[in-house]
């Protein structure tokens, strides 16, 4: 099966709890692929397995045809997979610029010896990196805020900075974990446009966890629905929307408050 990311029979357990259960998933290149499901359905666990935070017990994860399960997160990042976090995880005591510079880490070559002797290569590379950082900050709408400590940025800016930092790794596949959480309708709308631009202008494949159905249904090419770690439905937004199992999972007696807002 072709596809940028292929997940086969993925299982992740925590003690007795099966967080992800024999999951199969294919993310096509240049798609915006959403993963939805009630709270605790295993969406973030799936992300954590793909990015190497967790080691799955069973199953395979192929990225561009190569197995990546069990690799360390930094290796996976080098292959071109980056993510953002549900509860923003910036380097709080570093400036916005330093956050983005750190994102470029894998593409920099200068060594610590070069830094000490201030070699020409190091100086040029740092200059380049700073320019790139400014460009990325401007791209996400943080022009002129490079010197602000990340923790002092307003909430919306923090979300944007996290995306800028992720983009700095020049990802092929970007995983966004609830990028619109806590945003007002206006900001949400901007974020949707922005995600589209990432795909259309930069050619980045997007994996998206999202609770706001409007967002999911508007921008996704494909939607996978999880419940209790199992895939219960998959298809285009329209197909998924009409699937009785999805309606059951969301509106069933168990957790009516689970998501749709």
């Amino acid at each position, binding site marked *: 099966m072709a596809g940028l990311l292929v997940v086969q029979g993925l299982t992740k357990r925590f003690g007795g709890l099966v967080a992800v259960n024999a999951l199969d998933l294919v993310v096509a290149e240049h798609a915006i692929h959403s993963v939805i499901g009630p709270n605790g359905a295993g969406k973030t666990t799936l992300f954590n397995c793909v*990015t*190497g*935070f967790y080691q799955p017990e069973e199953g395979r994860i192929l990225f561009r045809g190569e197995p990546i399960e069990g690799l*360390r*997160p*930094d290796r*996976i*990042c*080098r292959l071109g997979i*980056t*993510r953002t*976090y549900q509860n923003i*995880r910036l*380097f*709080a*005591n*570093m*400036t916005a610029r*330093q956050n983005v*510079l*750190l*994102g470029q*880490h*894998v593409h*920099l070559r*200068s*060594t*610590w010896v070069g*830094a*000490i002797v*201030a070699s020409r290569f*190091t100086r040029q590379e*740092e200059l380049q990196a700073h320019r790139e950082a400014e460009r990325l900050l401007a791209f996400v709408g943080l022009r002129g805020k490079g010197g602000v*400590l990340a923790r*002092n940025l307003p909430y919306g800016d923090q979300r944007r900075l996290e995306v800028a*930092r*992720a983009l700095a*790794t020049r990802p092929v596949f970007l995983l966004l974990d609830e990028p619109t959480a806590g945003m007002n309708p206006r900001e949400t709308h901007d974020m949707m446009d922005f995600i589209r631009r990432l795909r259309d202008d930069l050619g980045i494949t997007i994996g998206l966890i999202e609770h706001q159905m409007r967002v999911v249904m508007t921008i996704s090419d494909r939607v996978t629905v999880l419940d209790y770690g199992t895939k219960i439905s998959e298809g285009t937004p329209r197909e998924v929307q009409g699937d009785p199992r999805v309606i059951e999972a969301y509106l069933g007696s168990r957790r009516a408050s689970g998501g749709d807002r």
Partner: protein
Amino acid sequence: MRDALAVGLLSGAVAVYLALVGVVEQLHGRLVLAEPVRLSLGQVALFLAGLVGAMAVARRAAAGSPAAAVLAGALAGVSAGAVLSMLVLAGPALNVRAMFVNASPPLFDLITLGRGPGGVPAILALWGALGAAAGAAARLPAGARRPLAWGAAAVLLLSIFQELAQLILQAGERTAVVADLLFTSDSPTPGAAAVVFVATVALNALWRARGEGFRRRTETIPPAARRVLRMAGPALAVVAALLLPAVGGAFISQVLVIVGLYTLMGLGLNLEVGFAGLLDLGFVAFFAIGAYTVGLLTSVGSLGIAQMSFWAALPVAVIVALVAGVVLGIPVLGIRGDYLAIATLGFGEIVRLLVLSDFLRPWLGGSQGLLDIPKPVFGGVELVGPEHLFYVTLAFSALVAYVAWRLQDSRLGRVWMAIREDEDVAEALGVDLVSAKLLAYGLGAAFAGVGGAIFAVMLGSVFPHSFQLLISINVLALIIVGGLGSLPGVIVGALALVGLPELLREFGEFRFLVYGALLVVMMLLRPEGLWPAAEQRRELREHVEATEPALEAAAAPPTAGEPTGG
């Protein structure tokens, strides 16, 4: 009024504590003034306990009339005096000395002003008067109170450092004259004390009145000139540092060498703790490894193995320390936070105990250590004295500080900072945690190794007793007091926590008492350190800006607590 009583009793208790712990008697030997009244530092310490309490009470009672403040102060003073009187009365009667070694007749004499038990009324009167004076002083406008407090503090400093100043001044013929003008054999001269007091008060008052204008005028200086001015400070510091041994002589040089060694260690530990957030309490091990490597390689004694020169052994020592840092770093890679501190503490102790043991004695000398380490020779000159070693230490400290400074803003420095902030996220952004952490351990250890190497030649011998856990704790304390992650902070911290205690060696073990108390007070009042790192400082400034109006509002009524000047 109950408030005044309570605070008075508390300050009385503090005074009794100071007396019994031995501070008063120890400081009694040092005079602030011989003429017209004989006033010792010990008495000052005792009185300060009462004064501070009375001032606090008066400040709080300030809603009423000035008379109320004076009265409250007096009451606090009398009750503090009463507590002291109890000590004086009960002391000889109950043979308190069997328990408290310092409860000696001289101490009681000192408190009663030599009048014995009959001196109690005098004590009460004196302390009441002191309290009243403090109460009155508390009601002075800040514009008058602050300069006076600074003046008093300056006179005290003159007295505290008189021995040191004499030592330095007596060295030169011309400066010896100055010394005679400033000091008698055991106290500052009345004239000197008066001049210092008046000068400090005047300068302080002038700055209070004109400082704002002066500051505003500096802002109108053209930027180019300002840059020159800004460079002037560090340049002056460098020149001063270069001249210090010549001016200060052997003792000062020795102290500075020790400060330099702690700076080297501090810079190394700062790399681990300040930059990369890796808490290390076994850091002294790498200092020891540097020292022992140089000892073994250069010693001409029985345990020496190579009889190399210091300059040839130094790079070896650095590399050995670096490798040791990496090797001891590998097992603790997966440990975080407090647990890392404890694990490294364990490694540090293991290294020291092994070196100390008879088991390794045939190679490392056990508790007798390594002897006969020759002094380094540089350009045909044997670097014997601390004046020479000072320059060696200064040069290497500068080199290491430069390296640390270059690393701080480099790609590696950013990676360390990211690990400090959130190592999981750093890893997900492609950071190889293993190599980054091992580099921090290795380079940090290498810095300490340089210090150890110099330490070995400074003493001419190496003993395991020099590498106690206490050193690791000291180094950690100094980088935190200086300001975690801040390079100038390391130097400031080393001067404050190592230099000052060394200079005040004559005050004996009480420096550790003060050291401990200062650590606590410092963490309570200024946890970000004396010279915080750039990011922290920026943060602070923004914080201050945000809260300044509130502070001003709070400061407007005269009741607001201002820290006592001095």
